[in-house]
């Protein structure tokens, strides 16, 4: 036995030792596979060396943005099969062009970095953006990174070090670089490219930025000392700060757009000389190049692009090691590989190749006109973005510059032994520009793109549908004859126009043939459904029978959406019609006066055309002024005009807004949403840090001044009081303080609004369900603290609100002899200057737990179902609200009489709650699961009198291989799917839906892929369900099957 134990022990030891030995050897081998990249300097200048060999960076800024997508598109989240197809197409061409390195704005996963290196011998610069375009700080998305904030600094540094650890042993890594023109981000007001900043006005802020770079690189070098580190700076702005903080940075990474040359001898300016004198570091261009569109002549101009790139590269070669000049050029990454169709406006016109120039640069003389923009951001590619091919990959179509660079890069600049000028002449003489021009022109013609089209069709969609539906009573009674069949056909055609360089736009035309008939869904296209009218021979509509007639052929063609932008020197003018528009919540609209209208699908149900109007945005002397006006500038708005002016006083950001209704809407924006009286609001907002880590936001509001003098009634004790609206009742004030508590972010807000000081929609975040309201007549206090705990965040919050004047009870009037006791009734917004509705008294508390190990894909993004890339992420929230008092009466729009009507009484006091959870699973087998669970007790939003019920809801979706989508829901005792169901307390005992969709296009998603599918609906009915469906118990259930085919072209 003892001998057996000994043998077992030896075996165990052997296994363990073998495992350890293998691991050691594997890591050693891995480490040996990692290239050694170093810099070298002597009296002749600087070189980069990879594994001891000279390496002049012939690089390309590379990315893959399909048509119709923008920066949010993630190639690395697609199936491996597609990724490989894309890489093979792209890197074959890159390799043929003699590219030896790429820089990408997304972090290419390690295995694909290795793949690119091993298959194509191309290295990768790892370049985390380091908060340049916002960052998630303790679970909160912060769009404008504050490099001064200690918590932000720690988080950004930690994230970068994590990346270094991840990539440090990956074969193919060239070096690490931080940020992207982060210094420009200190001056620009948006994420779009703006005119380059002049001077160094933000030295204070810049010092925080560069100090953070220094701390981070120093820490990274401790982890991975064998790698090189740099930053990506906007030109050499703040070079003195770079000299102060960047002493141990290995190279200086620079984005520079100075034109064909980086020197101006006439003015004694030289980027090379400045760097040599002040930094004594090698220069690695991270971006440079030229666009291929001539903004002056308004045509594609690939010749100028090729000419500029040729000039830039010949200068870079001249400035490299051993040429007798500064010797500090070690290469660069050309901006960029391919056109990106999202760069102008970034979230609009993604499938249109915009020709609008968005900034001015005098260095590009081929199309520069003083005072006019000439840099076309969507045209910087040395290849064009072609159409999608049979492999599901968007084609790459080389321009003339591709061929020029290919031949330039075939030359090793270090091997030319002649003097710089002779060597470059030799290179230049070998470049036959005419042949390149011809090749480029052939490619352009082959792509069949008419770049100078002023008007063209850009695509469209055909939808064919077939429905069958039925009610239990009808089917029981009539069998198959109780089923109702219908079909529908709809065509959308998309058009774009740009007749001049200043004017561009797009619109969609909608045509429909038949309209399918659904009992479960209100659908865009119902406008064309047949309607039955009664025709009477005489005026006696009450007793004479009349005859029914069916009106068909209604509204078959309409313009679905339209927008056009005119870009002048002093202003931009935009007309919009039924296109998504965002709120101004992060632009100084503290009171939410301009509401967001992005739910196009929700509006289409009612054939609502909002938003539509015109927006003016000032530039130069009028910079900061925005005017929006129109018949319905957001969904449900009265015809109005809004003025906004942003300015600052002594470093305090201020925003002034005035909103003026011009008329009252004639009809409801949906079927039942009441219209609102004309009104006006004026607001002033200020934002300023008041201490380190403490931000104060303060706003003042003047609203509904036209109601001063109007009377209202209220109850006090046993008395009925009639009072008048006074000036003070139109005023409101709101203050919010955000501050750090250890590593957490906390806030507190106070809100006072006079009786009629109504504002707009409060901007909510992080999935909150607290019962906010923009109505006046309130005193509110709220607060919360976002507590990070690793990959978790916990967010407890509270909201307490009291009314200045309570809701009215219902006391009937009584006449006794000749004395009238008038009684009192709940108010409503048509008959009274104010009413207690959503702004009712409440004590509400909420806690939300979120787990998201990949904060780059923000869990509370509107598109989280698509962008969330964590293997598992979820949230769980509980909101509990005590409504301790009743409300006044809400209203609805009574369509038959074309007028508002009040419900007559309000909602009762009640406690409600909501538990909700969203879970997202990204399995390793190309399957994504999304679950949404809700359980709660919720009141109606209008019709009073009936007790609330508890409901449960489960929605689920599975996306398999990006081609198959299975989705559905199960709901118990829940409101119907549209707002008016909750408004009228219409509930179904059970609701089921199951849908299967097959996407027909590769590399596309639900929104832009052709598809076919089937949907099945089933509901049970009871006395709380719509009377027209339940029919007094005749129908216990109803069902519908929909099939559809969509072809997107």
């Amino acid at each position, binding site marked *: 036995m003892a001998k057996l134990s000994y043998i077992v022990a030896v075996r165990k030891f052997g296994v363990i030792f073998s495992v350890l030995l293998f691991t050691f050897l594997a890591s050693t081998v891995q480490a040996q596979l990692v290239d050694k990249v170093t810099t070298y300097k002597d009296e002749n200048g600087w070189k980069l060396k990879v594994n001891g060999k000279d390496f002049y960076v012939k690089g390309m800024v590379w990315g893959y943005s399909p048509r119709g997508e923008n920066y949010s598109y993630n190639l690395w989240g697609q199936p491996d099969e597609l990724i490989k197809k894309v890489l093979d197409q792209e890197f074959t061409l890159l390799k043929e062009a003699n590219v030896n390195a790429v820089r990408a704005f997304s972090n290419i996963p390690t295995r694909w970095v290795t793949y690119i290196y091993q298959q194509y011998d191309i290295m990768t610069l790892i370049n985390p953006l380091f908060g340049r375009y916002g960052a998630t700080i303790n679970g909160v998305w912060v769009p404008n990174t504050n490099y001064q904030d200690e918590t932000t600094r720690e988080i950004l540094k930690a994230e970068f070090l994590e990346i270094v650890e991840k990539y440090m042993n990956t074969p193919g890594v060239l070096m690490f670089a931080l940020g992207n023109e982060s210094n420009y981000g200190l001056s620009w007001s948006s994420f779009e490219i703006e005119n380059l900043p002049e001077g160094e006005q933000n030295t204070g802020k810049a010092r925080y930025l560069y100090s953070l770079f220094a701390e981070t690189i120093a820490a990274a070098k401790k982890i991975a000392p064998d790698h090189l580190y740099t930053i990506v700076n906007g030109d050499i702005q703040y070079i003195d700060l770079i000299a102060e903080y960047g002493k141990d940075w290995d190279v200086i990474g620079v984005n520079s757009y100075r034109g064909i040359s980086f020197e101006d001898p006439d003015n004694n300016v030289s980027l090379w000389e400045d760097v040599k004198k002040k930094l004594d570091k090698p220069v690695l261009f991270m971006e440079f190049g030229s666009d291929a569109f001539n903004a002056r002549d308004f045509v594609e101009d690939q010749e100028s692009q090729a000419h500029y790139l040729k000039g830039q590269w010949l200068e870079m070669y001249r400035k490299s090691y051993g040429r007798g000049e500064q010797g500090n050029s070690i290469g660069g990454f050309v901006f960029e590989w391919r056109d990106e169709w999202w760069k102008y406006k970034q979230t609009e016109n993604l499938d249109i190749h915009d020709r609008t120039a968005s900034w001015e640069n005098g260095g590009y003389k081929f199309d520069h006109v003083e005072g006019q923009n000439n840099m076309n951001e969507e045209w910087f590619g040395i290849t064009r973005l072609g159409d999608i091919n049979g492999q599901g990959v968007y084609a790459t179509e080389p321009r003339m510059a591709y061929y020029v660079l290919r031949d330039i890069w075939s030359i090793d600049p270090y091997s030319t032994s002649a003097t710089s000028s002779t060597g470059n002449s030799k290179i230049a003489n070998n470049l036959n520009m005419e042949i390149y021009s011809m090749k480029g022109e052939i490619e352009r013609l082959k792509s069949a793109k008419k770049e100078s089209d002023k008007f063209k069709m850009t695509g469209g969609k055909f939808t064919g549908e077939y429905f069958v539906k039925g009610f239990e009573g009808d089917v029981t009674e009539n069998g198959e004859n109780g089923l109702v069949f219908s079909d529908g056909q709809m065509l959308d055609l998309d058009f774009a126009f740009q007749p001049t360089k200043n004017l561009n736009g797009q619109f969609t035309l909608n045509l429909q043939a038949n309209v399918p008939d659904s009992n479960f869904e209100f659908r865009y296209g119902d406008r064309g459904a047949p309607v039955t009218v009664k025709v009477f021979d005489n005026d006696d509509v009450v007793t004479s029978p009349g005859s029914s007639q069916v009106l068909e052929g209604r509204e078959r063609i309409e313009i679905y959406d339209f927008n056009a932008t005119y870009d002048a020197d002093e202003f931009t003018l935009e007309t919009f019609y039924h296109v998504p528009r965002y709120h101004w919540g992060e632009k100084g609209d503290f009171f939410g006066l301009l509401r967001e209208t992005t739910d196009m699908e929700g509006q289409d149900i009612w054939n609502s055309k909002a938003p539509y109007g015109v927006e003016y945005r000032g530039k130069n002397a009028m910079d900061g002024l925005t005017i929006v006006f129109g018949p319905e500038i957001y969904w449900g708005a009265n015809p109005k005009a809004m003025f906004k002016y942003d300015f600052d006083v002594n470093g305090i950001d201020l925003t002034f807004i005035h909103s003026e209704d011009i008329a009252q809407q004639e009809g409801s924006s949906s079927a039942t949403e009441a219209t609102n009286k004309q009104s006006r609001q004026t607001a002033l907002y200020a934002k300023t840090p008041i201490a380190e*880590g403490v931000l104060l936001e303060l706003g003042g509001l003047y609203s509904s001044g036209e109601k001063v003098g109007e009377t209202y009634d209220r109850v006090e004790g046993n008395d009925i009081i009639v009072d008048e609206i006074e000036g003070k009742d139109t005023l409101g004030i709101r203050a919010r303080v955000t*501050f750090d508590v250890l590593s957490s972010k906390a806030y507190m807000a106070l809100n006072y609004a006079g009786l009629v000081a109504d504002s707009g929609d409060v901007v909510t975040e992080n999935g909150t369900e607290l019962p906010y309201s923009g109505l006046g007549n309130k005193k509110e206090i709220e607060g919360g603290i976002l507590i990070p705990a690793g990959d978790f965040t916990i967010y407890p919050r509270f909201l307490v609100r009291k009314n200045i004047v309570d809701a009215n009870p219902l006391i009937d009037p009584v006449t006794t002899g000749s004395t009238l006791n008038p009684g009192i009734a709940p108010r409503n917004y048509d008959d009274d200057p104010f009413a207690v509705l959503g702004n009712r008294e409440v004590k509400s508390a909420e806690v939300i737990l979120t787990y998201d190990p990949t904060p780059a894909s923000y869990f509370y993004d509107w598109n989280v179902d698509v962008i969330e890339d964590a293997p598992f992420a979820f949230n769980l929230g509980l909101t509990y609200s005590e409504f301790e008092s009743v409300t006044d009466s809400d209203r609805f729009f009574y369509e038959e009489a074309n007028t508002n009507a009040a419900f007559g009484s309000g909602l009762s006091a009640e406690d409600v709650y909501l538990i909700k959870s969203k879970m997202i699973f990204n399995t390793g087998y190309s399957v994504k699961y999304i679950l949404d669970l809700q359980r709660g007790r919720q009141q109606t939003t209008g019709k009073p009198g009936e007790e609330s019920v508890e409901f449960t809801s489960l929605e689920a979706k599975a996306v398999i291989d990006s081609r198959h989508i299975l989705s559905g829901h199960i709901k118990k005792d829940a409101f119907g799917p549209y707002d008016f169901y909750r408004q009228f307390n219409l509930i179904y005992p059970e609701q089921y839906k199951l849908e299967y969709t097959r996407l027909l296009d590769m590399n596309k998603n639900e929104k832009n892929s052709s598809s076919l599918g089937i949907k099945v609906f089933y509901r049970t009915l009871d006395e709380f369900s719509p009377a027209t469906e339940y029919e007094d118990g005749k129908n216990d259930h109803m069902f519908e099957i929909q099939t559809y085919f969509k072809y997107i072209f």
Partner: protein
Amino acid sequence: MRNSDTDNTLFPVARIWQFMIVSVFLVTLMACGEVDENDGEVVNSFNLPTDSALTLYCPDAGIGGESCILDDPENPYAITPVNDTTKWDLSDDAPSWKARFYMWATAQAMSPRGENQYHVALALQGMYSESGSELAREQALKAYRSVLDNYYDDVWFFKYPAPPATPTLYLWPKKVRLLSVDNLWDDGDGDNPLRDSTSQFPLSPLFASELAALEAIGEWGYTFESETGDIIPN
């Protein structure tokens, strides 16, 4: 970049003071937002008029969409919740035609429709019947004309046999314009409500003769069809 050590010590203190000052200011402001109990007027009861002298707050008080009656300080119903539920009892309990006029004019101002307009006319005719006031007669004619001009097809579900008689449970829909015509002159028909001597609300005709009534109707732009008893636009 960190500030000096001294700054690190002061910052929390300064921060707390600033935060407290702002909080005190805001809390004070909110505490001031109460409604003064002395604001407003107590209106627990009103004396209803028992006379029949008509004064009009504006020329078209009680007519069409005119809402000036709601601002009339003489109107005891101005702040009363007059609606489809309360107006019938309020009308039945009103101590006089004048009170009834104010009540129906309030109903009309809040919800302009045929049955409210008709009862405004009826109340004014009642005041005329009591006092012989020419102003009341003119205003009643205005109201009846408004029924024709603005609410031509509206119906009223009245209690049979004739409004506003002792209530029965039977509801009969009739075009308010036909009811209006019945009240303009005494056509000698036994069914004419003006001849209903058992009615609690005896009314005097607004025209002494059929001819005078037809002339006025013609001036309004209508023609009376004696076969149907209906009134047709010209």
